[in-house]
């Protein structure tokens, strides 16, 4: 895949914005929780994009540990 890193960041921003809209606009607690999950995923995607940009393991470790620890939520 040779997509520029910017597009990954843009996708992450769009997903985060949608999650925020859901968080503020929906009243149902379950759906609010799902919107938070959406925002967490957007953050993961941003970590991934940063890791890809720097081609370091750091971002991958961070994103992976976030995926693993959000098991509790």
């Amino acid at each position, binding site marked *: *895949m*040779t*997509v*520029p*890193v*910017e*597009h*990954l*960041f*843009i*996708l*992450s*921003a*769009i*997903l*985060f*914005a*949608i*999650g*925020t*809209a*859901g*968080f*503020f*606009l*929906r*009243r*149902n607690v*379950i*759906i609010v*929780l*799902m*919107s938070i*999950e*959406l925002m967490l*995923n957007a953050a*993961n*995607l941003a970590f*991934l*994009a940063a*890791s*890809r*940009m720097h*081609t370091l*393991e*750091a971002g*991958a*470790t*961070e*994103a*992976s*540990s976030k*995926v*693993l*620890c*959000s*098991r*509790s*939520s």
Partner: protein
Amino acid sequence: MANALFYLMAAGAVAAALGVVLAKSPIQCVLSLLASFFCLATIYLLAGFQFLAAAQILVYAGAIMVLFLFVIMLLNLGNPSSKDGAEDGLFRRKGAFLSVIVAAATMAAGAMAVTADGLAPATQPMPEHGIDTINGLAGEMFGRYLLPFEAISILLLATAVAVVVLAKRDRKDAGKGS
């Protein structure tokens, strides 16, 4: 080919995320979220993060989604609740205002990321076994990042204890109330 698949999956992820926010019934929301997670897992795979994609499927699609479905079905929340669409003008307007602000800020940050010239194009050839090999990940996680890792485990333990405490208190209160 991979680029086209990426844009397809990105469009799918955004559409599914919109479905989470706009769908009427919680079941539809859960299924949209599931679709979004699968699209994101494909994107992770395309970007070379194989372990992350596997963890996304196993943890999110496997565990968290089943948890949401269980909660919705056991508590019988499947019908679109009348409260969710309640006419609460002030809250709605405030929420819409806030979300527009946050969305604008996020998009501005994205635009700044695009226009910044510090971003290197990611055109390096992909390693065959992905960027996040299990070996490298474990070495980093239990070496350089051991302290944050342990901090996360303490946080998780505290959360589990808090859940037990809150759940027990809730039951006692309910028993007292009846």
